[in-house]
């Protein structure tokens, strides 16, 4: 059987990869260049490159503050997800009356995109009195249906004999989850953490609605605010963009496999 040579496919993929990487390069170049960013024609390679735009971002905009807010919200979301999704996933592995309805409820909730709920969600949050707080931002992100099902599938794969043995040894349900189920579900945990991180780190619309004051703003809000104040007149904006993207990209590159598995098992965001 004669096989087609592989170099045309490589050629196409190299071109596609370059096209996909152009925006990354262009913004990185602009953040480093020492020349006026409006000079025409722009140079492909940065002229007198320096890192001082990054220093400017750190001191002139409250970048550390935005970073802190983002980290707090993301940490809350990750902790909430790990706790609530684990226990909910474990509960779903049990038989109880109304189980079908609960599953159906979760599945139908999954079809409601969060963006379609913003008006009442805002009113509910203000009724709960947590507008403009970390909790208010994190609350809708505290549990993810996809991850509940990922945990459920992972728990169901744990051998029944192991659980029975633990029960004979007199371990409580809670202990069984922590001591036996979770150590055997590392992949599910990693998927959950990575998905939650990426989603809460990037969340924009909801914080935009809930956050009122500038010292509570998270990174995406800070970025949008900086853009609205300065327009794109300074290389510092692009340094800001790079600084915001680096943590997300790092986590993604470290946990690519888990992230992709999470997305393909749930497939829809929201």
């Amino acid at each position: 059987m004669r096989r087609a040579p592989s170099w045309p496919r490589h050629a196409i993929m190299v071109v596609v990869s370059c096209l996909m990487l152009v925006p990354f390069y262009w913004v990185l170049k602009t953040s480093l260049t020492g020349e006026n960013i409006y000079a025409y024609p722009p140079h492909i390679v940065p002229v007198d490159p320096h890192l001082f735009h990054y220093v400017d971002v750190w001191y002139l905009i409250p970048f550390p503050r935005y970073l802190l807010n983002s980290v707090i919200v993301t940490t809350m979301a990750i902790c909430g997800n790990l706790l609530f999704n684990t226990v909910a996933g474990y509960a779903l592995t049990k038989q109880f009356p109304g189980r079908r309805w609960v599953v159906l409820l979760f599945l139908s909730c999954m079809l409601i995109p969060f963006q379609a709920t913003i008006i009442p969600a805002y009113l509910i949050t203000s009724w709960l009195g947590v507008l403009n707080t970390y909790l208010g931002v994190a609350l809708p992100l505290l549990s993810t249906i996809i991850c509940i099902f990922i945990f459920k599938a992972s728990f169901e794969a744990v051998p029944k004999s192991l659980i029975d043995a633990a029960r004979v040894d007199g371990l409580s349900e809670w202990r069984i989850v922590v001591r036996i189920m979770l150590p055997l579900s590392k992949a599910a945990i990693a998927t959950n953490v990575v998905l939650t991180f990426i989603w809460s780190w990037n969340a924009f619309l909801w914080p935009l609605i809930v956050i009122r004051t500038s010292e509570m703003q998270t990174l995406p809000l800070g970025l949008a605010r900086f853009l609205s104040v300065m327009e794109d007149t300074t290389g510092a904006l692009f340094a800001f963009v790079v600084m915001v993207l680096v943590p997300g990209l790092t986590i993604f590159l470290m946990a690519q496999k888990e992230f992709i598995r999470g997305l393909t098992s749930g497939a829809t965001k929201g």
Partner: protein
Amino acid sequence: MSWRRILTHRFVVVPLAVALLAAGWNIYIRFNDDGLIEGEVRDRTGAPVSGATVVFFERNFVYYQEKQRTMTDAHGTYRFDGMQVHVGQLEARTEDGRHSERRQLRLWFRAQNAEVAPLIVDAPRG
């Protein structure tokens, strides 16, 4: 999972490396953030100029304003202390109306100690 494997896992190594770098950088900053900005003022022949006024402008995309001024001593040197800035411009002026260029000063962190290359007073103000 043994401790060795946990410690060499990428989820542990990468955050640890980042934390170490950040800690090291902060220690370095702690020892170099007195905000000392020092330099010399000379004329065109290279002789030190005493009694010249050196003005520090805070210039970035938020402000452009004079922040502080000082005088050169008998050896033509000047010194700013406790400057809580990371970017700015320096200009030297003499009594008789000569002045230097506005020298751009960029620092790596706020209040970094810096040694500025000599400012040359030259053309009369105009």
